[in-house]
């Protein structure tokens, strides 16, 4: 008998929707304390230079300034903002306040003042003399023999290779082969909440950091280690997240603010402006990719080699790890028996690259999907048939890591999506009619479900029942504003068959929560959600154990329904959960509480096929996305409405990535995109109505069969839109973003 789900699969608003709708939700930037001080950072205005001198005397004299820090009076110790788990080995190349600036936006000084106005004034009174050095804004310049070293050891940080089979040799001998060079640009996450954090200093030497983060434990680890504090004395609390998309996954503001708090023994609020958030946190990594594949005359790809250059920007952060992660994603969606990937990670005098939605998958998928489209076109095969010759099948083995891709349903995403989108009809309209050109494009993407096969991937949760039959799920999770908490409520409510409002979920607080690896690698639903499921089962069992004592019957003869335990065959004989809890305490002197540590056991692919229809004004180069469909293999949608909303948000981000967004610098390294007036996000008038096709085939280890969707949502978008533009114009534009200038240059 298949039980119909009461909560799973339904649509719920996010758990704090009402609070947010009323403007009453508190974000870190809203937090205040009576004795708080305000911190502001002075950033470098040159792209590459030694600081010859830095004079803070005028600024220090300003009334209301408490203290100013520069490289001269702050630790020379280095850190890496990307550190997130204990024992992680990483090269550390970043200082709190640098003595050598490496990009426009590098941290030069920190000011603590009594008001924000005073702090901002003080910034302008600091006098710096720079000894400027040659600037490398491109990886080509950085790798040039005469390129000035940005860090000791040279600008080529590392070269990583991933290999299956004999791709290079086979391609060299192949007759039918194709080569493409594709690039994607540096981008900004664009979360509406700029970076911010609030630190409470507690005498004699304890601190609480309130921050919108993706791992409170990472923040704790990095800050405590840097400042020499005990982990138990440093509390990190994850605040309501006003969007992250990877942009708040690194430990940057927290470390600076904690240092300032410790030095001044004060509460500190550090708010970054939008410009600071764009330039001086982390950016989405720019990649150049050269892809070459050998195919047979039927369109089967039998060898692919990829050479990539990853632009790390000024500091290492996660770039070498990302260069590997991007390469690994090549092995996920298509079944290619010989695949070689080689990536060079390079420093440049540009804003630092770091975590970003998809972590290399948007870039590598854009590259590969443009490459695939080009091959299909040259072979005279249609986009769908060519892909169907090469896409993975359910339960295929991922060739590099030798683990199962699980119930991989990319083929259905593609075929069912094409049908729902009216692909064939739309393709018939492709081409130029007068001034306007119509085109349709598609792309396939795959993503992960956690870190399995890579690093530790576990979550612990504690579930307890209160004396009224309500529950508290204590997690180390971090809802990014995408409804994680709500989905856990649904899972617990479903397993325990209680009203969803009887379930409260707590998020990460390093002093009170059990450990969780963090919101990364699309692991939250698949791993943490499974943990919630398992701990609910454990607690259900304890409830039955307690009821067994009460009824003096074996557990097997009991059932649970609507927050009550009743005897099978005698449903009038029942006891409510709350009463059981009370009895448990008073009579059995026992608490109904369960702990679960769940470690991921698999890493299936989550897949999607996206379809875009565009209209290009061949006179102005402006592109309008007129129709869009996203077809997703989600396993099971826990909160259906939220899954759709996440997909649509990913499409918004991807369209901008494809057409309008870029963090640009000029040849001297001066940034040309410094705020939303120069960095254009897609607004409501330019957003198409995004249709979603949610395919639920189950078959993997996630709770109720669920797989990831949040990161995957952006992965195929860029290529779908770029393929559509190329289809409209008959071009082969391969360098994102496809701005009006690039389109006009290609047409004329």
């Amino acid at each position, binding site marked *: 008998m298949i039980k119909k789900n009461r909560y799973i699969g339904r*649509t719920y608003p996010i758990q704090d*929707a009402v609070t947010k709708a009323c*403007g009453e939700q508190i974000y870190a930037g809203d937090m205040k304390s009576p004795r708080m001080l305000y911190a502001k950072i002075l950033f470098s205005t040159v792209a590459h230079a030694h600081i010859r001198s830095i004079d803070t005397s005028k600024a220090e004299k300003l009334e209301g300034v408490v203290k100013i820090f520069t490289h001269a009076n702050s630790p020379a110790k280095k850190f890496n903002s990307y550190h997130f788990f204990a024992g992680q080995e990483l090269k550390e190349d970043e200082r709190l306040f640098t003595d050598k600036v490496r990009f426009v936006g590098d941290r030069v000084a920190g000011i603590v003042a009594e008001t924000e106005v005073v702090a901002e004034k003080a910034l302008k009174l600091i006098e710096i003399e720079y000894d400027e050095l040659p600037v490398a804004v491109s990886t080509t310049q950085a790798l040039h023999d005469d390129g000035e070293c940005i860090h000791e050891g040279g600008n080529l940080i590392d070269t990583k290779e991933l290999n299956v089979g004999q791709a290079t040799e086979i391609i060299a001998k192949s007759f039918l082969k194709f080569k493409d060079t594709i690039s994607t640009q540096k981008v900004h996450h664009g979360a509406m909440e700029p970076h911010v954090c609030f630190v409470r200093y507690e005498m004699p030497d304890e601190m609480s950091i309130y921050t919108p983060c993706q791992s409170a434990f990472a923040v704790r680890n990095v800050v405590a280690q840097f400042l020499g504090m005990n982990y138990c004395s440093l509390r990190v609390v994850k605040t309501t997240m006003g969007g992250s998309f990877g942009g708040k996954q690194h430990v940057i503001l927290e470390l600076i603010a904690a240092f300032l708090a410790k030095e001044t023994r004060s509460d500190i609020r550090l708010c970054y402006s939008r410009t600071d958030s764009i330039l001086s946190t982390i950016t989405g990594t720019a990649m150049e990719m050269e892809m070459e594949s050998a195919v047979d005359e039927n369109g089967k790809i039998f060898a692919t080699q990829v050479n990539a250059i990853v632009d790390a920007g000024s500091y290492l952060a996660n770039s070498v790890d990302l260069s590997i992660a991007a390469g690994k994603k090549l092995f996920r969606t298509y079944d290619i028996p010989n695949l070689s990937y080689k990536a060079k990670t390079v420093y440049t005098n540009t804003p630092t690259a770091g975590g970003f939605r998809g972590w290399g998958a948007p870039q590598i998928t854009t590259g590969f999907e443009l490459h695939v489209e080009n091959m299909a076109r040259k072979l005279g095969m249609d986009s769908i048939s060519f892909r169907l010759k090469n896409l993975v099948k359910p339960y295929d083995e991922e060739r590099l890591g030798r683990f199962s891709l699980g119930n991989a349903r990319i083929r259905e995403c593609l075929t069912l999506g094409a049908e729902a989108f009216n692909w064939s009809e739309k393709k018939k309209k492709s081409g130029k009619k007068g001034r306007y050109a119509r085109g349709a494009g598609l792309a396939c993407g795959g993503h992960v479900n956690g870190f399995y096969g890579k690093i530790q991937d576990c979550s612990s949760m504690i579930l307890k029942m209160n004396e009224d039959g309500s529950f508290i799920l204590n997690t180390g999770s971090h809802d990014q504003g995408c*409804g994680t908490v709500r989905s856990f409520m649904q899972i617990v409510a479903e397993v325990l068959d209680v009203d969803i409002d009887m379930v409260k979920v707590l998020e990460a607080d390093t002093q009170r929560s059990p450990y969780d690896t963090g919101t990364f690698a699309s692991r939250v639903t698949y791993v943490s959600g499974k943990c919630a499921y398992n701990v609910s089962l454990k607690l259900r069992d304890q409830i039955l154990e307690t009821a067994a004592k009460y009824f003096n019957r074996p557990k097997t003869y009991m059932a649970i329904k609507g927050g009550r335990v009743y005897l099978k065959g005698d449903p009038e004989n029942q006891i409510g959960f709350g009463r059981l809890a009370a009895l448990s305490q008073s009579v059995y002197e026992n608490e109904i509480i369960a702990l679960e540590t769940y470690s991921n056991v698999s890493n299936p692919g989550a897949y999607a096929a996206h379809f875009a229809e565009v209209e290009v004004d061949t006179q102005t180069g402006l592109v309008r996305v007129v129709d869009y469909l996203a077809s997703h293999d989600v396993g099971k949608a826990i909160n259906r*409405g939220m899954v759709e909303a996440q997909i649509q948000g990913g499409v*918004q981000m991807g369209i901008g990535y494809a057409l309008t967004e870029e963090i640009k610098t000029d040849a001297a390294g001066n940034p040309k995109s410094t705020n939303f007036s120069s960095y254009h996000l897609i607004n*409501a*008038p330019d957003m198409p109505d*995004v249709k979603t096709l949610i395919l639920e085939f189950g078959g993997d280890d996630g709770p109720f069969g669920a797989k990831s969707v949040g990161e995957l949502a952006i992965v195929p978008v860029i290529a779908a839109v770029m393929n559509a533009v190329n289809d409209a114009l008959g071009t082969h534009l391969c360098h994102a973003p496809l701005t009006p200038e690039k389109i006009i240059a290609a047409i004329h």
Partner: protein
Amino acid sequence: MKLNFVVNTKKYNLDINPALRLLDVLRDHLNMTGTKEGCGEGECGACTVIMNGKAVNSCLVMASQINGKEIQTIEGLRKNGEMDLLQEKFVEHGAIQCGFCTSGMIMSSKALLTENPSPDDEAIKQGIEGNLCRCSGYVQILNAVKDASSAK
């Protein structure tokens, strides 16, 4: 400078630095943190409030300009503990995710519906063209505003 103004039907008579922004007056002086700063240059709309019936970016309004004006913020939409219909519809339609754009988005929508009680899709999109959302793709937001309008 002494400024007389009304926020959410309450009268204020305060001596404030006139060069502050309305956003700062609301968030720091009046402790109304519902209005957010997303960009500080009038591009994202997170700071949108209604001033004398018009949606404006409070990050661009200088305090001296609010003298004699009536301002409505997100905190002023709830009446006697009851949410405004727009707020209800935003919740109902899943138009809220991270929530950071929500205050501004609701205020722009409120200004739109006050002026144009039955806007078509194009008019709604134009009404929120100055409000950026990074989480949603605007689909549920449009549905919420549409629903709030035809229900009126």
